[in-house]
């Protein structure tokens, strides 16, 4: 059994070395650089998987606790239709809708709060109040109000994503420097013009932070909300059911799908960020 562990260790060390070497070198050719840039996280990931596989075999961990990656892969490939249906239900319906609405709402309230000092003093404390409405308590209520289907999950996701967006937008809207604002004042620019032409652009780095955080939070929210009542489809439903059925490989297959979907989602947001905030030092410095 120790052969596994030794192999894991050796593999890990050599992969690490390889990665260090790769990132230290600068490649002239653009395509080579691109390949290297994707290879590095990939190598890291593969290393994790190999270590995982070896540990499971090496320590004889029961699959009900932690299945080996190979087992999860087998399950993944053999349950594509179920996984796809769950993905549609949870990701395409609950997560995306909830994310859009939650971020939209947080943004809108932040703008509203910014518009009116009165509301700022009245609404912001209330905003803090709903900052941590626990999904454990909220999800059953939402099921009661909005039914079992994805609509109630959307509601949970909205509640979860609202606050990060609110806080970040409020902070971001104050990111423009004094001189930049003074310039707008000299034009007697209206509040809207100042917002659109100065304060929003300056706020984007913060807003994108919220969009990034929310991209994963929304997924967690939607999945966990399904623990509290759902039609019999969905990633959260599958996970909770299959845990109870001791089909832990299926649970991890869902998790793998969630991780993949979440990472792609995050990646897209990060890409949009680079595109929108190209001027920010954090992006201009070469990395976002």
């Amino acid at each position: 059994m120790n052969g596994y562990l030794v192999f894991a260790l050796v593999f890990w060390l050599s992969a690490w070395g390889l990665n260090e070497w790769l990132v230290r070198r600068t490649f002239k050719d653009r395509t080579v650089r691109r390949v290297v840039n994707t290879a590095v996280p990939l190598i890291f990931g593969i290393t994790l998987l190999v270590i995982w596989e070896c540990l499971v075999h090496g320590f004889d961990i029961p699959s009900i606790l932690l299945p080996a990656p190979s087992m999860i892969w087998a399950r993944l490939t053999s349950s594509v239709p179920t996984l796809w249906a769950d993905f549609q239900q949870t990701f395409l319906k609950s997560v995306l809708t909830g994310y859009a609405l939650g971020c939209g709402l947080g943004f809108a309230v932040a703008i509203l709060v910014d518009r009116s000092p009165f509301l700022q003093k009245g609404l912001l404390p209330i905003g803090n109040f709903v900052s941590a409405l626990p999904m454990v308590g909220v999800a059953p209520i939402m099921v009661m109000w909005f039914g079992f289907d994805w609509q109630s999950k959307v509601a949970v996701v909205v509640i979860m994503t609202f606050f990060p967006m609110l806080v970040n937008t409020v902070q971001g809207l104050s990111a423009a420097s004094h001189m930049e604002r003074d310039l707008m004042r000299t034009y007697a620019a209206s509040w809207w013009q100042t917002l659109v032409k100065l304060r929003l652009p300056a706020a984007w780095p913060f807003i994108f932070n919220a969009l990034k955080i929310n991209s994963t939070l929304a997924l967690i929210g939607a999945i966990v909300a399904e623990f509290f009542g759902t039609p019999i489809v969905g990633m959260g439903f599958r996970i909770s059911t299959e845990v109870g059925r001791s089909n832990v490989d299926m649970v991890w297959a869902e998790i793998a799908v969630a991780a993949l979907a979440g990472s792609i989602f995050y990646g897209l947001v990060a890409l949009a960020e680079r595109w929108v905030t190209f001027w920010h030092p954090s992006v201009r410095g070469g990395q976002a």
Partner: protein
Amino acid sequence: MTAPFSVVSAKDLCLTFQTGDGPVHALSNVDLEVKKGDFVSFIGPSGCGKTTFLRVIADLEKHTSGTITVNGMTPENARKDRSYGYVFQAAALYPWRTIEKNIALPLEIMGFSKEEQKKRVEQTLELVNLTGFGKKFPWQLSGGMQQRASIARALAFDADLLLMDEPFGALDEIVRDHLNSELLKLWDRTDKTICFVTHSIPEAVYLSTKIVVMSPRPGRVTDIIESTLPRERPLEIRETPEFLAIAHRVREGLKAGHSYEE
């Protein structure tokens, strides 16, 4: 037009900044009258309150006491009227906009049509000698180029009153001469009123109809010199005795106000 009408009129103007370690008297008892069509230069040692005074005119800073009117109104109303264009001491370009877009910014805000915007952007870019750099971003420009872009931005919308805070500080003599005479031409043609902060005595004398010499802490006006030079000013005027006399008076005023002796 009848008797020249007062564009900026300050009486007994004071401004004190409250800072962590006590108050800073940036302006004290400033009296000044700027008439329509005047070209007023402000000159004075670093930190004497020139920027602060311009900011009060522009309603970016509130005076502590005294009165000031701009175009006969409060600075606030004048600002809301979009009575002036302001060139800040630092360029203050928006990093997410190209130079072109930066210059178009006030035009967008004031609702100029797309073609008009394009035309004016091109004209002013040309004026400040930045043609070809319109598509660059601010951080891709040298310091002087950024400063010129910010001048272009203030000129683009053709305000009647220009507030310019050391607009040519980062420019070499040749460009500076060029822009000086362009500015004079513009002023002559359009009958603008210009308040101009500079550290160059020749520049002040060459450009102005009135030179305000300030002294530091608390910022006071120590001398106001009405220029006797004609409105038409070729570059050679800088060699005339009249010119040199005025320059001398300015230099003396400056020296008097200075805290340390050489």
